[in-house]
């Protein structure tokens, strides 16, 4: 007979940050309907409030001050509430808060101030949080959709403008296309192991007999296709082609948020599926997971393509889009390194550290672009950076910090992220990739430092406007980048106990 579970079995409390956020989003949706058009700022404040509450809960959980719920698994093993989830939550909530701050005035002056923006942001964030906590393949997919669809709408938020609509269309089509690959891959994994729960997959893979080629086939193909589907989300080559167009066409405040959040979600899911689900999936006489080779090849290709094409860009948003692709490559090195079991924990921590550092840096960089951008979305070319140091010294200084961080210069958070990732790569014996990573970082210095050069040593208008919330966001990002750069142990302490292994 079928046994009716009780409500406490669900252990909803363990998922408190995510649940609070999702509920909050639903409530704000309704509340916003009754907020008159001129007062849409109320929704923004409500959103910020909801995000803050969720952030506080996530921080409390991360620092082990409070333990929510009863054990690590919620919703019958579909939601895993461990340190990994907590850190993912913190990263994406910080990003969202910053995203709301930069959007506050931007929406006003570009006539896009509609309440939908804010709670769509909340839904995306909730999606990322669920992706980070996924304990089941189905959850991975649903969360991915929850993450993606609001982003499609947000990309096309600047409705009359053609560029925005076009990029939304491209994003949607390609996104749907890749989701299809993802679903197929997840289905194949299910077929190979007979279950969709990640813990049980891990157990099944463990006991999969070597030489059972057909199961291996299915599983490998499934893993490969999952890589494809999730690789699209994080803009890995060769699934990156939507990135430049979407980043250029979407409203800049959306890009600021999306560039980080989508990556966080994508990498979190990738780590869950590959590193938690099938870490010990080794072929006959291998010492590393079967999916490791593909991953580092993808990483290498991503870094190379991203960095090279960025050199010849003349539009800031497009340049940062390719930079985003390149950084996805660096992070993929970390994912690849997790294929070696003894390095898996170190590599997972490295990925999260990198993402945290990247969050501050990238949101900051895009915020500066928002400051420079005019109401009609022009003035986003490289030339807008000319002479910025003279008219807006603080803004230029912040941008310089962000550029240095993206390059990976020591004393910035970007360097800390790269350090940990490369360390993990070398520990996993992936020397060639690490070398490519370092070389392409050198290459990237050209286009990042070129911006710094233009700000300080060339003449230009340097027009920019920094309303208070935007200035605060830039300030927080800059300070975060520098603080994490000077005190790297803050990051590594946060990530210290993170492990994806199911143990036992």
């Amino acid at each position, binding site marked *: 007979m079928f046994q009716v579970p009780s409500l406490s079995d669900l252990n909803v409390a363990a998922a408190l940050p995510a649940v609070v956020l999702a509920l909050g989003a639903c409530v704000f949706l309704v509340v916003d309907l009754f907020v008159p058009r001129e007062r849409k700022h109320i929704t923004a404040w409500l959103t910020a409030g909801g995000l803050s509450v969720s952030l506080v809960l996530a921080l409390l959980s991360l620092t082990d001050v409070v333990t929510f719920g009863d054990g690590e698994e919620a919703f019958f093993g579909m939601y895993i509430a461990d340190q990994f989830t907590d850190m993912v939550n913190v990263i994406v909530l910080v990003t969202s808060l910053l995203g709301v701050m930069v959007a506050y005035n931007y929406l006003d002056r570009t006539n896009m101030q509609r309440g939908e923006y804010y709670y769509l942001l909340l839904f995306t964030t909730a999606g990322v949080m669920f992706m980070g906590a996924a304990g089941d393949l189905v959850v991975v997919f649903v969360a991915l959709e929850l993450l993606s669809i609001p982003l499609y709408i947000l990309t096309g938020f600047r409705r009359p403008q053609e560029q925005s609509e076009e990029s939304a*269309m*491209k994003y949607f*089509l*390609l996104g749907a*296309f*890749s989701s299809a*690959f993802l679903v197929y891959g997840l289905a194949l994994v299910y077929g190979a192991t007979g279950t969709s729960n990640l813990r049980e997959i891990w157990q099944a893979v463990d006991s999969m007999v070597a030489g059972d*080629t057909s199961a*291996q*086939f299915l599983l*490998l*193909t499934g*893993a*490969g*296709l999952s*890589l*494809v589907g999730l690789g*699209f989300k994080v803009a890995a*080559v*060769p*699934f990156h*082609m*939507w990135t*430049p*167009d979407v980043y250029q066409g979407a409203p800049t405040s959306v890009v600021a948020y999306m560039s980080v959040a989508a990556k966080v979600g994508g990498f979190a899911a990738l780590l869950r599926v590959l590193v938690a689900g099938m870490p010990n999936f080794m*072929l*006959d006489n*291998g010492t590393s997971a*079967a*999916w490791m*080779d*593909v991953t580092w*090849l*993808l990483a290498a290709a991503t870094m190379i*393509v991203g960095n*090279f*094409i*960025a*050199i*010849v860009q003349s539009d800031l948003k497009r340049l940062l889009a390719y930079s985003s692709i390149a950084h996805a490559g660096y992070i993929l090195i970390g994912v690849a390194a997790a294929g070696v079991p003894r390095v898996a924990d170190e590599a997972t921590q490295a990925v999260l550290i990198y993402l945290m550092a990247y969050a501050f840096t990238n949101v900051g960089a895009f915020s500066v672009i928002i400051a420079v951008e005019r109401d009609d979305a022009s003035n986003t070319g490289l030339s807008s950076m000319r002479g910025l140091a003279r008219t807006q010294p603080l803004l230029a200084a912040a941008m310089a910090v962000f550029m240095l961080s993206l390059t990976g210069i020591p004393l910035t958070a970007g360097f800390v992220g790269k350090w940990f990732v490369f360390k993990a790569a070398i520990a996993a014996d992936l020397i060639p990739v690490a070398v490519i990573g370092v070389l392409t970082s050198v*290459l990237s210095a*050209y286009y990042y430092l070129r911006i710094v050069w233009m700000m300080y040593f060339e003449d230009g208008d340097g027009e920019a406007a920094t309303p208070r919330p935007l200035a605060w966001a830039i300030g927080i990002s800059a300070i975060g980048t520098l603080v994490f750069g000077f005190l790297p142990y803050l990051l590594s302490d946060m990530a210290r106990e993170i492990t994806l292994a199911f143990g036992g």
Partner: protein
Amino acid sequence: MENFFDLVPLVVFVPLVGLLINLFTGKHLGERGVGIVAVGASGIAFLISLLLWLAQVDTGYKPVVVDLPLFSDWISIPAAGVEIPWQFRVDTLSVTMMMAVTFVGTVIHLYAVGYMHGDERFPRFFVYMNLFLVFMLILVTGNNFLMMFVGWEGVGLCSYLLIGFWFDKPGGVGWKNSDAARKAFIVNRVGDFGLVLGVLITFWTFGTLDFYKPDELPMAAHHAAEAAEEPVFAPEIPHEAEPHIEGPMGVFNQAEVWLEEGGHDVNFGMFSLSFESTITVITLLFLLGATGKSAQIPLFVWLPDAMAGPTPVSALIHAATMVTAGVYMMVRSNVFYHASDAASFVVALIGATTAIVAGFIAVGQWDIKRVLAYSTISQLGFMVAAVGVGAYAAAMFHLVTHAFFKALLFLGSGSVIHGMEHGHHHVAHGGHDHDDEFDPQDMRYMGGLRHKMPRTYWTYLFGTLALAGIIPFAGFWSKDEILLDALKAGVDDARLEGYLAFVLLVMAAAFTAFYMWRQMALVFYGKPRHAAAEHAEESSNLMVYPLIVLAFFSLVIGVINVPSGFPILGAIFGEHEFTSWLEHAVTYAHAASFNVLLASFAVVLALVAIYVARAIYNDRALETLGQQDPLELDERTEGLFAVAKAKLYWDDAYFKYLIFPYRRAAYWLAEQLDWRFWHDYVHKTVIQKNFHIATEFLTQPVDKGIIDRGFNSLGRLMQIIAQRIRVIQTGYVRTYAWTVLLGTLLVVFIILFPVIRGMLGL
């Protein structure tokens, strides 16, 4: 209650926050806001000190070492065995200093809000004052010599900043102020040199700079033996019998152990000294530091000049707190001084000599603050002499009482000066802007202020009586105890320095009473001798209330250490409360029982001196004062007075025999060695020319040709590659989707490659 000890970092941190607030937002806060922040910070620090005091009482006076989480590994080089943590020490000695510093500090901060009213750089002043508090508190709460040194240097810096605060006053006055500031700093440096050497040798000898390690208690062995001579205390104070002997020890316990063992040598590389001699060297070097900071012979010359700073500064730094740092340091190191008879001898001698020399000079001064400055030097001499004869508790007692009444006197003098300036404004209002001849601090222009500024007068009177040592005011108790201890050291222990110190200190006490009454007479009695004094007005409440508070304490604070055997008061307030309190931190603190004869002698002496002063500076003499002191007019005292007025020609001697030759030598070296030889010949001809030849070579063919060309080509190659790659981005969704498909096939193929290979048996 124990948890209160964790608050001690706040005592440093709160004034730091206060100064940061004032530094960054001071301009927007207005005088009231800045004052509230500064006084508030100081007040909160006092409250915390109070809590710490209560916590100490509650936990049996045990010393506690508090670690600050992020900073405990302040200087840590494990490979070299260097471990100097940033730790706070809360024991009875440091709590005493904390409370004295913060209480007097808060009162003076409050006074300063009124005193500095209208100053252009009002916020900056309070930033410096709070900064001073921060450093002074680091000095007294540090658990090792290096932290003490950090505080030592820091208060020196603040002294410099505050003395020269009015560096931009017109008419050459600004220059004088900044000169005084520089003098203070440089003279202090000489002393610091001694202190640094002492600290270094201490580290070399002991391998650590910690006073005591955490959980380590001061050793009681020696003390118990001495306590046996004073049966009054032994039963009351539970001495910690078994100190922490195993494992690493702090400096003082380690010293005690080695002294007991004997025969320990310290190796300095080329030679080695016995441990006892090393201690003597260390203590003498520390003494050098103390002569700088606490203005003893020979480095006292900066203190009188430091009066150029605003009066609250003089009160706080150069009377109550900073100058007592040297005394604190020596009391903290009482274990060392107790072990070295030779050093103690020198210390006592220097202290006593300074006391009387300064007292002598004070008689001949006309500037109201200068009298007080020399008085401070003299009283510091008392404290230092007390340390020299082994009366550590007495020294601390005098430090505490002196803080109150000297601060009172300085603040009172500030009130007088303000009144004089106000009067001068009143007078010169109609005519020219200011009378260049008029100096509001010159006592010759004052007189009769008793009626014009009554509250200032009465509080100043209290302070004078306290300083002169008239019972029941505070100064009597502490000064009497020092005299008693000196006499005892001479008589009972047959130590020469005891006798000498006693005699000199008694004479100095007499001088003290004399010059203080001279000052009272010149300032407050008689009739006003200048229009400014005629129109002087009482100062604002903000300035007078602190005076009243300090006056109250000058009267009553003596009861904290009533000597044993004193009738009535001893029973009410307990005997030697303060000494017993200190004993928990100062191993060799001991008390003396009351000697009626000596006490009466001291009081009578002071009264006689006052009577003599009154006689000389009677009303008739005051009226016809003009520019000459009655002592100048009398042939018998003419010569002595001139010498006193000229400050014993001390400054002039320094200038003639030290500074001037130094300058000549520096100039000659700069001209000959540095400029002519080094710059002209070596640099220009030898180095520069040859360097040019080399660089010319390297630039042309090497740099431009090879390196530049190489890198430019590399860069261009990257550009070309990038241009080639970028064309795949067509902008068409169909191309993108096609690429995704292609990529998928590639990924699946690569991932399946090993399996396929296995299947095909390759």
